[in-house]
């Protein structure tokens, strides 16, 4: 009794999830929620504005709509819908592609597009075979005591298009899940000449499990002869267990991947190489233009920044500022040319050695990205098959009359674009008659 009821529920659920009505509703909801996310500022794109949205909206997840459980649930339901729908349709599609049987009587020939030809049995059969074969149809024929019948199929893979596009969507979602659950995403601003362990970068998602280091040999902002920016280039080395494994120059649109971790050139800033000389101890540093970072001389409460920078390769110069403690006004400012040394508040000596680039690297591991590309490829394949490779099926039944003559009833299945099928069908008939 109980089992019976369970089965009822399973069946009920199966029926709901195999319906396209649910599919369309889900697609509509996805579109709606996605649209809302472009009206509310999203925390990952505009953190400040997102914080200014009313608390209740934030709690409900409107400012990070694409990572809310609701949105994910929608996508999950859509996937279940698509999987069940595909399972249900598989057999039918298989039968319509590989299990075609010639009609058993003239009345089972498709009758929307239908023609009757009279003629002599053998010559008609031959011309049907010739014409269909020449036009790329795969033909199956059967003989019976009443006559013969045939069915021909062309572009048979077209039938699989919709199934492949549906599965591809599930593949895409799986790829996206792999990326968010198993990967990481981080950012680092690194000065030329420095080495940092990969697990020390700032991550906005996931954790870094790898333990190699990267060394930045150089970071450059290159220009073309006409004065336009060429690209940003970073000469980067991967160091593992004290050994350099590989070295490569990356630029925007040309990343480097090592052990699943990819380094993308994403931004660039100018910086200055400086040396602080404190009590005979020399401390080298690189400070970023426009106060991107600061230097606190050990044993003092002096903070040094580079407020501006002239990046002329011949004679670089910086505008420096020194602050004391939490003071808002600098206690010392000035310009430094390359090679020049000055005294900072009697505490240490500062030498400007030259310019050095800061490279902004997006560092990411996404084990799902290949699954996503696979999904994209399947999606395209499915759509191309659906729309540019439509299956065509023609069939016919020949009924012998007196003597060798008889009547061939021939028809084609009117697909989604009846006009085109009709044209092709007419041409086939014309060719067969011409024989």
């Amino acid at each position: 009794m109980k089992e019976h009821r369970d089965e009822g529920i399973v069946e009920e659920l199966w029926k709901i999830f195999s319906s396209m009505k649910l599919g369309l509703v889900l697609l509509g909801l996805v579109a709606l929620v996605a649209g809302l996310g472009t009206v509310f500022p999203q925390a990952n794109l505009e953190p400040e504005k997102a914080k200014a949205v009313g608390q209740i909206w934030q709690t409900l997840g409107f400012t990070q709509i694409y990572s809310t459980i609701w949105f994910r649930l929608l996508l999950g339901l859509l996937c279940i819908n698509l999987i069940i729908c595909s399972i249900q349709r598989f057999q039918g599609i298989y039968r319509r592609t590989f299990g075609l049987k010639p009609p058993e009587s003239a009345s089972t020939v498709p009758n929307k597009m239908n023609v009757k030809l009279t003629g002599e049995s053998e010559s008609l059969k031959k011309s049907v075979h010739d014409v269909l074969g020449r036009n790329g149809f795969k033909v199956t024929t059967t003989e019976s005591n009443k006559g013969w019948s045939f069915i021909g199929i062309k572009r048979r893979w077209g039938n699989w298009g919709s199934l492949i596009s549906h599965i591809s969507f599930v593949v895409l979602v799986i790829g996206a899940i792999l990326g968010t659950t198993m990967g990481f995403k981080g950012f680092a601003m690194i000065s030329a000449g420095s080495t940092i362990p990969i697990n020390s970068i700032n991550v906005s998602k996931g954790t870094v499990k790898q333990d190699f280091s990267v060394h930045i040999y150089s970071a450059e902002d290159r220009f073309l002869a006409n004065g336009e920016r060429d690209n940003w280039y970073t000469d980067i080395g991967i160091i593992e267990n004290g050994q350099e494994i590989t070295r490569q120059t990356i630029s925007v649109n040309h990343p480097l991947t090592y052990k699943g971790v990819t380094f993308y050139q994403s931004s660039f800033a100018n910086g200055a190489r400086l040396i602080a000389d404190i009590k005979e101890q020399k401390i080298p540093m690189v400070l970023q233009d426009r106060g991107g970072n600061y230097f606190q001389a050990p044993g003092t409460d002096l903070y040094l920044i580079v407020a501006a920078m002239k990046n002329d390769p011949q004679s670089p110069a910086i505008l420096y500022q020194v602050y004391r403690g939490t003071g808002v006004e600098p206690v010392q400012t000035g310009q430094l040319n390359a090679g020049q040394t000055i005294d900072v508040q009697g505490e240490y000596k500062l030498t400007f050695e030259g310019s050095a680039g800061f490279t902004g690297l997006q560092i990411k591991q996404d084990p799902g990205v290949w699954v996503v590309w696979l999904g994209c490829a399947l999606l395209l394949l499915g759509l191309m098959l659906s729309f540019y490779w439509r299956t065509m099926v023609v069939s016919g039944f020949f009924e012998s009359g007196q003597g060798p003559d008889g009547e061939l009833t021939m028809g084609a299945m009117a697909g989604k674009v009846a006009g085109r099928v009709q044209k092709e069908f007419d041409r086939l008939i014309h060719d067969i008659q011409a024989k």
Partner: protein
Amino acid sequence: MNQGLLNLETSAFYVMLMAYTLCMFFYWAWMGSKKDLMGQFATYLAIVGLIANTAAIILRMIIAGRPPLSNSYEFLLTFVWGITLVHLFIEYRYKLRSLGGFVMPISFLILMFIIMSMGPEERIAQAIPPALKSKWLTFHVLTATLAYGAFAISFGLGIMYLLKMSRGADNKTNPQGVISRFPDLETIDELSYKVIGFAFPLLTLCIITGAIWANYAWGTYWSWDPKETWSLITWIIYAAYLHARLMYGWKGKRAAWMTIFGFAAVLFTFFGVNYFLPGLHSYASSQLISIV
């Protein structure tokens, strides 16, 4: 930069503008007067406009030394190109001249938008940031051009369908009316489906190539930036159109409304996201993506 080429590009733009504008009026004149000469003029003007349009795009490519995709101006230029190309193909293939009266105004309005809202400094070839230097972007824009062009055509067909349907009764009493020149309802409807069937895979390819490019440039194939999100919404609308048609036989009037709705989403993806949605510019990459 070569001043001669620049002047040539400007001339090509104005020849195109004039040809398209006149062509729109000739299509209308033809529909009103049924003088075949008018119709032929309209078609020839569309061809002249397309040639000038192509020239403007190629000259821009030579001047800038890259595909024409660095700013809204260049994208709109190729958008109009796509519309006219698909239109002329359909007009030739299906002998459907009356479509011009509904499609050319779209191109005309886009060109007016360029003239009214874009200053010369927005129209010149600009230096592009490193992120835009990618071959994927070329495919991205090319597929967008063709897909959007085709969606514009299906929009025109949708309007024709609705007009013809609402005047159905008049038509019998007035067989000389403009609308009598339209093909029958079923033909318009099926053609519209065919055009969308052609464009939908292209729109998909456009979104995918955009994702591949974004992944090379920023390491994120999808970031739910408003531009991306609206292209997805557009995609879903057309997917819904295809399914509703297939399963529930949504043809005719409902299908025609869907094509109008879909094209509104196309336009919003381009204009709305750039001009109406607040606060996009704080995100560096959205400015770059905002081309398509």
